[in-house]
């Protein structure tokens, strides 16, 4: 969930009133935002870098507000204020218009086919006659950064470049060239570099190095030129210094290059709609060329009955239209039955279905004003048989004097193989491709290592230690759609000064008694000697139920005991639970 930091006093000034922290928190809650933190620049620096660094920093109060991940229109002060003012009926939702320049032709951005190999889409727009102040400028830069981090997926899907239009001249060309053939002076540098040089220059840049991988291994890099061959930007890495915007910039050229054209359009719409209020004719950015129609309004028609039924309220068609209008979705009753016509503005890319409109009606109505009702759904409950059996067994195993452990389903390869004296290739383990540490290399194939690690962490406890766990392991299985399945296991260990095979054996007998399986070869259960490197030679037996092997028990091999950093003899039992269903 993205967090937007706004200066409290600026926010209140824009909202036209002040709130106490509690009142503002309440307003956020109702609207679906969260006032996450009340802080100041000074406090943040002092917390992150220590008090000494914080002296002299601003102590203007900042509100950190959590914004839903799909509401890109709330990622800056301008959008937040607009949303809240409309919600509180203090402002009518603005209408965004595209206008043509007073004199001259619309700007053009020509996209060449070479871009297809690296970053095929681009859209652009111009904000005309804008007036920046320091605060507006900061917000403008901050919004780009927020969009880059969220919808743009760290510039991989979309990258935004903004330029002072009066320093460059159209038409512009978006093309792609070999890195050695691109040469320009990048933002805030004093000399020219080739793209190849830039990539190595930025290897150590704490900010830009995170974006290099997006184009690094491509044969050609994207680049935008003006009609005089001046480089505007090399997306998604860096802009040229020549066209950089300043507080004095009057006309802003905004380009969005992308691998996802839908998102590029959303991002461009956000940039222009959020800042068009600072244009001489508010909310009227001028758009350039484009392959696609921008600032598109869409109209949806739905019935008030639909909304009433889905939300569980009973409001008139007019009232529902009013509710939606308060959410920046201008709506009216068409007069045809209970039909409502809803206009979706370009700022509301999150509205893709009637259910999104329904939600906005519910938010405007107030979730907490909706009557809580009980559905009449009649059903009979069933337990999942495997879980039912597990629950019953757990109770009786605890009653038999064993204590339940709860271990992780993920572990290291070593835990399930080397430490047990087995080869990883024999384990049928499912392997994880991106573990951050060795603890998450594989899904466990046996419960035993977890129990032995639990004992190792509890060596100070009085002996004997008697532990059990009934839980799932994961095994590869080609017959399943995902190529693996869970297997429910029962594992128990006895750790004491003597091995206590008879204790574990007794627990097996008790378990079989609980499962209604008699001790008998053939029909019932029996155990017979087996070889297993995890166990001490001659002290391991295989458990057979109706002639089928279901698990093993025995005295652990001293090497296994040592590898788990234990010092006493230990006997163990592990078996499948599913055959008893």
């Amino acid at each position, binding site marked *: 969930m993205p967090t937007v930091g706004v200066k409290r006093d600026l926010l209140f000034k824009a909202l036209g009133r002040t709130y106490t922290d509690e009142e503002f928190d309440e307003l956020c809650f109702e609207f679906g935002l969260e006032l996450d933190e009340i802080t100041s620049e000074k406090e943040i620096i002092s917390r992150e870098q220590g008090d000494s660094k914080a002296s002299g920093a601003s102590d203007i109060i900042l509100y950190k507000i959590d914004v839903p991940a799909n509401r890109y229109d709330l990622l800056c002060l301008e959008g937040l204020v607009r949303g809240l003012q409309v919600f509180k009926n203090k402002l009518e939702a603005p209408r965004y218009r595209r206008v043509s320049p007073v004199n001259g032709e619309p700007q053009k951005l020509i996209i060449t086919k070479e871009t297809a190999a690296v970053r095929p889409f681009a859209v652009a727009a111009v904000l005309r006659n804008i007036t920046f102040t320091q605060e507006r400028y900061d917000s403008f830069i901050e919004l780009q950064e927020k969009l880059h981090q969220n919808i743009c997926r760290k510039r991989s899907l979309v990258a935004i470049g903004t330029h002072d239009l009066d320093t460059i001249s159209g038409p512009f060309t978006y093309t792609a060239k070999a890195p050695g053939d691109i040469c320009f002076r990048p933002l805030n540098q004093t000399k020219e570099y080739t793209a190849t040089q830039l990539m190595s220059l930025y290897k150590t840049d704490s900010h830009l190095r995170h974006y290099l991988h997006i184009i690094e291994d491509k044969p050609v890099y994207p680049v935008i030129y003006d009609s005089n061959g001046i480089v505007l930007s090399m997306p998604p890495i860096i802009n040229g210094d020549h066209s950089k915007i300043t507080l004095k910039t009057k006309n802003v050229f905004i380009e969005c290059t992308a691998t996802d054209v839908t998102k590029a359009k959303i991002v461009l719409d956000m940039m222009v709609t959020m800042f068009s209020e600072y244009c001489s004719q508010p909310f009227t950015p001028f758009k350039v060329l484009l392959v696609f129609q921008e600032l598109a309004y869409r109209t949806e028609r739905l019935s008030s009955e639909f909304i009433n039924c889905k939300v569980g309220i009973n409001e008139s068609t007019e009232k529902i239209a009013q509710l939606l209008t308060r959410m920046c979705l201008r709506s009216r009753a068409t007069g045809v039955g209970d039909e409502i016509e809803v206009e979706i503005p370009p700022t509301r890319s*999150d509205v893709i*279905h009637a*259910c999104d409109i329904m939600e906005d009606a519910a938010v405007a109505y107030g*979730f907490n004003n909706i009557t809580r009702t009980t559905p009449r*759904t009649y*059903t009979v409950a069933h337990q999942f048989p495997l879980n039912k059996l597990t629950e019953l067994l757990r109770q009786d195993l605890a009653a038999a004097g064993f204590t339940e452990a709860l271990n992780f*389903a993920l572990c290291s390869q070593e835990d399930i193989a080397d430490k047990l004296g087995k080869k990883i290739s024999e384990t049928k383990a499912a392997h994880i*491709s991106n573990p951050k540490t060795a603890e998450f290399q594989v*899904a466990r194939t046996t419960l035993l290592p977890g129990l032995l690690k639990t004992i190792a962490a509890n060596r100070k406890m009085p002996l004997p230690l008697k532990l059990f766990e009934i839980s799932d392991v994961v095994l*590869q299985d080609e017959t399943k759609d995902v190529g693996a399945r869970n297997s429910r296991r029962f594992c128990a260990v006895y750790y004491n000064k003597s091995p206590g095979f008879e204790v574990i054996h007794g627990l097996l007998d008790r378990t079989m008694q609980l499962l209604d399986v008699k001790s008998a070869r053939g029909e019932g259960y029996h155990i017979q000697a087996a070889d297993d490197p995890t166990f001490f030679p001659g002290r391991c037996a295989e458990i057979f139920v109706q002639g089928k092997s279901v698990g093993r028990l025995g005295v652990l091999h001293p090497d296994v005991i040592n590898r788990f950093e234990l010092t006493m003899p230990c006997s163990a039992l592990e078996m499948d639970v599913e055959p008893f269903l």
Partner: protein
Amino acid sequence: MADTGVVEALLRRVEKVDDGVDSLEVATSLELDHQVIVGAVKSLQAVGDVISAELRSSKHWELTDEGREIAEHGSHEARVFGSIPVEGLPQSELMKLSFGKIGFSKAMSNKWIRLDKAHEGGPRIFRTVESIEDQVREKLLLLQKGNASQLEEKEKNELKKRKLLSEVTVKTYWIMKGNSFSTTVTKQETELTAEMITNGSWKEKKFKPYNFEAMGVAPDCGHLHPLMKVRTQFRQIFLEMGFTEMPTNNFIESSFWNFDSLFQPQQHPARDQHDTFFLSDPALAHDFPQDYLERVKKVHSEGGFGSQGYKYDWKIEEAKKNILRTHTTAVSARMLYKLAQQKFTPVKYFSIDRVFRNETLDATHLAEFHQIEGVVADYGLTLGDLMGVLHQFFTKLGITKLRFKPAYNPYTEPSMEVFSYHEGLKKWVEVGNSGIFRPEMLLPMGLPEDVSVIAWGLSLERPTMIKYGINNIRELVGHKVNLQMVYDKCGWTDFTFRM
């Protein structure tokens, strides 16, 4: 039990007097050590109200070993004086005597003797007075006879400083007859035995009372894990509410069922390497319901079912990638798809099982945790119904004050965060997430258009940590837990969180 003879002798003494006797006096007159009498008093007290004994303490002066020696033989200085003949004594001779050194300096300062250093044959000591008065000895003798009051405090303190005298506190009992006084005491039995039951002797015996203040012996038993006990309770709540348990025993899931079927776009950050565990072996899933897969692809890339869709290039390769499921909602998706393949009947489903996130670990986050999930599918369910069901569910947990905040979730619309008022913290805290599944998820499955599916979820660990007052999740889950915690965190008669 103290020696019966002593006990009875003591009782006879007590019988003779009405206002009681002092235990020390009894000891002196019986010529016994005081501790023997104290033992007898204690054993009589244990029997019941035979005697009443009041503990008294008194202070008195007592000679130290050195003090007693002086009372007997005289002070060191007096003995030095006494050992010097008229013709004097060589200093070296005097120093050989046990009292020589201390007595010499004291006698010198009293000016009873003098030292002639220049005497031929070495330094020699001579008397300077005819006779002396050994006041130290006389004072000590007075004290020994119990006449301490004849000495001034200052004098006593001076003797104390010379370590000849010490002040001791004596604890004695003032013993009087109790309500059930008798001069004979029956021996008490500690435990009832099988023999006593057989021969009926228990009827005549008296039994030593138990000490009910002491703790009992801990039973030798096994324990269930606290988190699993809370899981059992949640299961119980769902079953009481008529919810059927879903088969969630499949940790490995395809991205298709975990994300795509839930209308979670392929570029969604949750599908990042940083958030989700991907598998290298088995890396890919196969066998998808082909026509359903086509509908999912279409709703993502082009829209449909009334939706604009996300309009991106949906790739089967992404959907095939195997992962460790990030939520049990993947199973809900499979169940709802299965439900859609038959004639629709309303269902209520639940599950409580493990899910996995490749996240940065901290005190409240692990790479795996248990998700609790509830799902209801029926015709015409409303947002009000979802709130009503949540109210009933949380009421069973003892949480009655709820409110709902609009939220965002890719597969539910509307989505609501559930907050409950925490009386301790005096603020609203988030207790779960909920919503109505999107039509883009349900309609491609083939569920009827007028069926709504409401759902909610929460973690099992968080309420358990609140219930048992555990701040670090590693103290609750995994092999590093202290088993003593498992033994101890067991108390409940009811499942009520004090939120």
